Every structure is written in C-alpha cells, then in structure tokens.
C-alpha cells in the first residue's frame, strides 16, 4: 500500500535521487584518475594541501587513527571514546598547534583508507601504527619515529625459557605470511641454535598452539603479544627484541610546514621524556 501511494511523491526523495544520479555520473566520468601515481602527486604537490594556516583557521586538527588496536588507537566500549598512545599524541599535537588538546577531530582509518584519506586531504595526518618503509616514503612523508615495535617471544611462565637461545630444538608459532619466522631463523643462526617455526593462519591459533604445547613460544610484534599475555596470566613476554618496526606519523607528501611542525613536536616529546611516559602509561612493550 505504502509503496503504491508514496511512490514518486516526496520532493526530498526526488531531490536525493537527482543528487545521487548527478554525483554518480560525475564519478563514472571523472573518477578514474586515481592511477596517476607518483607523477600526479608530484605535479600538484604542495599547492593545494592544507597547511598549518588552514588548520588554524579551521580551528581543528583532523587526525586519522585506529579504532581496534588496543593501547594505540582503540574505541573503549565502556565510553565509546578513542583512547591509547596514539590518541594521546594526537591530543598533544592539537595542544601545541591550536592551544587546546581537545581541538582534534579523530577519524577511524583502516588499511584500505588511511592513505586515500591522507591524499584526498580529508585528514591532516595519520597516526595509526603506520610502519615507516622505504616504499611508503616515496609517496608519504613521515615524522621521526614515535614508537619502535619489534618481534618478541611469548612463552609459558613456568617453562624456564629466557631467550631465543633456550628454544634450541623447539617450535615457535608465527603468523602465516609474516616474515617473522625468517627473521628469527637468521637470529637463531647467529646464536648457533636450531629452531623450528610453525605457521598459523591467525594470532589466536598461534596462541592456542602455545597454550596446548604444540609450540614452546609464540613470536610476533611485542605490542600484539601484549594483549595475549594479558589474556593468559600463565604466559610472559621475553624482553629481547629480534627486529625493528618503526612507527611514524604520516603526512601528505609535500606538506612541508606541517611536517616540520610534527617533526619538531615529536623530537621535543622524545627529549622531554613525554613519549616514554606515555609508553609506560599504556603499558606498551616497545620503545621510542
């Protein structure tokens, strides 16, 4: 009944339809320019990116953060608010730039969106467990490292295992597709011990392998292990680190004044011990 009479009336619906149609056609005709790559980026570099003045006149710093990484960027179900080390850094940058730590607009980013939102100017920067790599540095500018993660080992507390050396002849559970196993094998070779690695499809399966004795250790980035250690009090993370994963704040290429500001802020926060303090506050296992 409703369908028959409500159909085609409603001016709002018609307007919405026209809007959607127009936008759709515009996208269909002009939306294929995404593949421009480095040449395109270089050509418009700098001229249209939001700089510090734009942020100041807007009055709010827009930061892309994670919503599902505990300790770094996480929506607390109790409060529905973001919290974590990276969130604190975002507030601190807003304070330094705009004089008020709350003048920050946080947007959830995912692996799919973090670079696109940065390139399209929807966010001024991304602070979202973004590892600095040479390939990424070609298309994104990074702040100095604000956190260094690395491969660590989670073992049973009562196993007596203290380091990789003690795992001679034992099995280490690692994630499928990660280079964790390879890096550990290299370290083991240096130490003159032989280890076996077993690949599992998810961290939860790695954890299960450790818990039921199919593996004597579970290896991945320390900050990930941290949460498994919290889940199971019979396990403990060993202090040694077997690789380096430097996290940086990502800024659109060519946005030089903003990069200079962030670089100085991170260096300051390192010098003053503020970052180390935040790492302790969030009980993270990595270092600056």
């Amino acid at each position, binding site marked *: 009944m409703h369908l028959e009479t409500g159909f085609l009336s409603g001016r709002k619906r018609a307007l919405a339809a026209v809007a*959607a149609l127009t936008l759709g056609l515009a996208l269909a005709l002009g939306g294929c320019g995404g593949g421009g790559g480095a040449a395109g980026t270089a050509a418009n570099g700098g001229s249209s990116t939001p700089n510090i003045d734009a942020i100041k006149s807007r009055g709010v710093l827009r930061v892309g953060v994670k919503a*599902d990484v505990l300790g770094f960027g996480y929506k607390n179900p109790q409060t529905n608010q973001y919290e974590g080390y990276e969130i604190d850094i975002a507030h601190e940058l807003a304070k330094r730039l705009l004089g008020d730590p709350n003048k920050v607009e946080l947007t959830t980013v995912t692996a799919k969106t973090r670079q696109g939102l940065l390139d399209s100017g929807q966010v001024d920067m991304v602070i979202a467990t973004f590892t600095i790599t040479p390939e990424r540095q070609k298309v994104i500018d990074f702040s100095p490292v604000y956190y260094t993660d690395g491969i660590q080992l989670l073992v049973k507390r009562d196993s007596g295992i203290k380091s990789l050396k003690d795992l001679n002849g034992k099995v280490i559970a690692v994630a499928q597709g990660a280079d964790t196993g390879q890096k550990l094998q290299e370290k083991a070779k240096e130490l003159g011990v032989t280890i076996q690695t077993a690949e599992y499809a998810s961290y939860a399966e790695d*954890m299960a392998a450790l818990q039921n004795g199919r593996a004597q250790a579970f290896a991945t980035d320390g900050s990930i292990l941290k949460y498994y250690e919290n889940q199971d009090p019979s396990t403990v993370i060993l202090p040694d680190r077997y690789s380096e994963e430097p996290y940086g704040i990502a800024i659109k290429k060519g946005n030089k004044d903003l990069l200079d500001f962030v670089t100085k802020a991170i260096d300051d926060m390192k010098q003053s011990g503020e970052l180390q303090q935040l790492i302790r506050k969030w009980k993270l296992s990595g270092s600056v």
Partner: protein
Amino acid sequence: MPESAPFHPWAVLFTPENLRFLAWGFGVTLRIALGAMAISFAAGVVLGTARFAGDRFPESPLARGVAALATVYIEVIRNLPMLLIMLAVRFLTPIPAIWAAITGMSIFTAAIMAEIVRGGLMSVEQGQWEAAASQGLSLWQTLRWIVLPPALRRMVPALVSEFITITKDTTFAWSLGIQELLGSGVILFNRYLNAMQVFALIAVVFFTVDFLMSLAARALERRTGEGLATQ
C-alpha cells in the same frame, strides 16, 4: 588497558556496556541501511523509469536521450565493485564518512533498483497502455491507475531481496572506518579475543533483521494480492 578476561567467553557479550556498544553500532548499521534504501529506491525509480521511457516512446527524441543517459549509468555502475564506489565517494567528497557510505551504496544500488523498476514496468502488457490511451487517460493517469499498481506488486520480491542485500552490505562501511555493527564487534573481539562469540551474535542479528524483512515482504505480497482479487 584490558582487564583480564571475564569468566565465561559468552559473558563478555552480555555486560551492559558491551551490549550498549554493539547496539550503538547496530544503530549506525540501521541508519546506513535505511538511508541507502530510501535514496537508492528513489534514484532507481527515476533511472528505471527513464530507461523504460526510451522503450515505451521510441518516437520521442527526449525519451530516447534520457533513456540513453540512464542506460549508460546503469551499465557502468552495476559492473563496478560497490566497495570501489564507496571508497571513491569517501575520498572525493568532503561529506561525513557515514554519508559517504550511504551515498556510495546508493549510487551502486540505484543501478540494480533501476533494472528492477524497469522490469516491473515492462511486465505490464502493451494492451493495458493502449486500452488506457483509448479511454483518454493522460500519461500520468495511465501510470498512476493502470500501470504502477501491478508493476509495483511484481517488483516487491526483487525489491525486498535488494533491501536485504543492502542490509548485509552495510558491513562494507567498516572498511571505510565507520563503526557499524561489524565494526563494534571487531573492536570487542580485539579486547576479549572471543571472535566466535562476537561474530555469532552479529550473525544472529543480521539473520533476524533480514528474515523479518522477508516475512514482511511475503505478508505484503499476500495482502496486495488479495486486494487485487477482491477488486
């Protein structure tokens, strides 16, 4: 930092805060779904009618032109992945993320809806149009009283299955960083590492909503069917 895990793996889902958190995400899911349904249906009616007009009135250059535009839109859009369109809207427009999701879904689904609408209109026999014209009914009167009632009734099953698809496809919004029901679930899962429980609950919610929608559609079909028989 996370407290140690509650005693029972299912218990964590049913604490008031966690339920509220999931309910909040479900609210976002509903907003995206209802928004996309309304916009894509309206746009689909416009597009589908436009394309149909070209078939119905081949002698009119205006109808043919409009139909050609609608055809290009439909054929281009429905052959693209919806997530690609959603990401394009997210990156190319300054609108808030949730509206980017709604718009992206609508742009895609309008093309599907348009074909449903066109199919419904085409299902009304040529003779009905001719009979109406011979009675001196205007185009609008013909549509309103002769063509649309049976056409809409025939569209209902396909429209409802598209509405169900929309509801399920709202989960793409999490890829855009929008915290809908699935997003809330992923966040909880990261805290409690209880993937099985969280995702089972989410599956039950989607199943219930979609199943109720198909039940409602069946009831609607029966009612309108009987209405026709008794007229």
